[in-house]
């Protein structure tokens, strides 16, 4: 098979479409497995993927360029001055670091995904998920490489919701006004602030081993809910979501399922009849798990 590939001037159209589907983010799990095998046998095809990524990235050149307002350039240059730069860096360093890690993985996708699976296993999740299949797929626009250990293939809606949760978490870290809309250390105050605006879980669990920073409403494309932001003793901001179930068709139950974004945050997802809960943060998987346990015992 390898020789056949290397000797052929053009790839067989089926394989070419597979590569295009990967770049477009529309492969199903079977196709993704097929592609991973193809790349394992023919590493040179990574260049083909890069070339298709490049083509996709060229599409906006086909549209008219728009002239930005005249003062935008000076604003950007002013903010790039070293003093301002240092100030900005201190403020947003964590969040931007996370965002860039989440979003710039636009090449080497299948390889990265493979590494992520290996990472997931290395982190000890196999104890909980040993007999379950690792279902691997990717976010729609190739921005994220998310791995979730589950015995069923999540639906597109579920993937979309996970991706948006991760995105919401990372955005919360870079906002100029800080990670929360309503800052308080009192969980009851968060509840009374938002209970008129959104249905909240009766349990309303609290993390014990981290300090509450406050709460924010969180609207995703398929669901909505509340984000509670916590800070751990070692300084990580952890987001704890309680979301209405409609954005998740995966059979999420009380057994927490690990989520990992490659080289990004770790998370756990679980749920009850009406809500899905997600803990996500740029912290080791073991810490997320410990936090979740502290929450269970509340």
């Amino acid at each position: 098979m390898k020789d056949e590939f290397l000797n052929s001037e053009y790839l067989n159209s089926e394989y070419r479409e597979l590569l295009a589907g990967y770049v477009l983010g529309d492969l199903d799990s079977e196709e993704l497995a097929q592609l991973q095998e193809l790349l394992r046998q023919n590493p040179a095809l990574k260049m083909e993927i890069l070339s298709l990524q490049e083509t996709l990235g060229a599409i906006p050149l086909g549209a008219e360029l728009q002239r930005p307002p005249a003062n935008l350039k000076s604003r950007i240059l002013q903010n790039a001055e070293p003093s301002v730069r240092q100030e900005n860096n201190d403020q947003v360093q964590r969040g931007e670091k996370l965002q860039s890690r989440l979003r710039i993985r636009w090449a080497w996708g299948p390889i990265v995904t493979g590494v992520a699976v290996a990472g997931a296993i290395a982190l000890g999740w196999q104890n909980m998920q040993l007999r379950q299949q690792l279902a691997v797929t990717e976010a729609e626009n190739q921005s994220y490489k998310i791995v979730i250990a589950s015995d069923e293939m999540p639906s597109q809606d579920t993937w979309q919701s996970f991706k948006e949760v991760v995105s919401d978490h990372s955005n919360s870290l870079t906002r100029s006004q800080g990670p929360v809309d309503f800052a308080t250390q009192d969980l009851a105050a968060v509840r009374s602030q938002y209970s008129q605006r959104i249905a909240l879980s009766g349990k309303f669990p609290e993390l014990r081993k981290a300090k509450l920073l406050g709460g924010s409403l969180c609207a995703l494309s398929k669901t909505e809910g509340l984000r509670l932001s916590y800070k751990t003793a070692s300084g990580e901001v952890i987001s704890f979501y309680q979301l209405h179930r409609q954005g998740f068709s995966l059979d999420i139950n009380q057994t927490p399922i690990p989520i990992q974004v490659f080289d990004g945050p770790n998370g756990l997802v679980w749920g009850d009849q009406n809500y899905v809960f997600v803990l996500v943060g740029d912290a080791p998987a073991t810490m997320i798990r410990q936090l979740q346990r502290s929450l269970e015992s509340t």
Partner: protein
Amino acid sequence: MSRACDFMLSVFSMPVRIRAVPNLEQQSFRQGQETNNTVVTDGELIERLQGGDTEALAELYDRYSGLVYGLSLRILGDRQEAEDLAQEIFLELYQQNKYNPERGSLSSYLATLTRSRAIDRLRTKGNRRQILTRWRQDMLKTNPTLPAEHASLQHRQEQVRLALEQLSDMQRQVLELSYYEGLSQSEIAERLQKPLGSVKSWARRGLLKLRDQLGETLDEG
């Protein structure tokens, strides 16, 4: 060296410094372009950025602000948000500079980053439809467009426009819905009232054809 590799480096190269040049033909193409135009390459500007050179940032802004701002505006449909995003993208390029020339052109990198951030913003807000309606109304009014200041970028714009014209209407429509509105293929199938299989096929073949067209254009050039 695969054909794909040759293609990628030749079609999309702004004058970016390539660390691993695949063959002499490519090398002479690149050097000739740079020498004739006496242009500071994107690669040189990126290196200067790493040393904190704001003049390099200003030059890169002049080259790519039309692309970054235009794409932001098209996706977000709101001028203020588009400005904020353009600022975020250029400052991130300056402060963190994660661009790797071996993986493609700077314009493609900036477009990919901008699109991804813009679509995330849209989804966080959850009011895509409303925004797009506003955008369309807004864009139909007068809107200053920007000729590319960089001759090489202008040339590539022309190549991409011609290549897009070669796609079938459905291929182009599906790619644009996916690219600019961030719709999944299921959402596109629903919007167009077409089978999902057809949508997938249009998108994949459209992308492949676009790539092949861009290759042919270059060969002719």
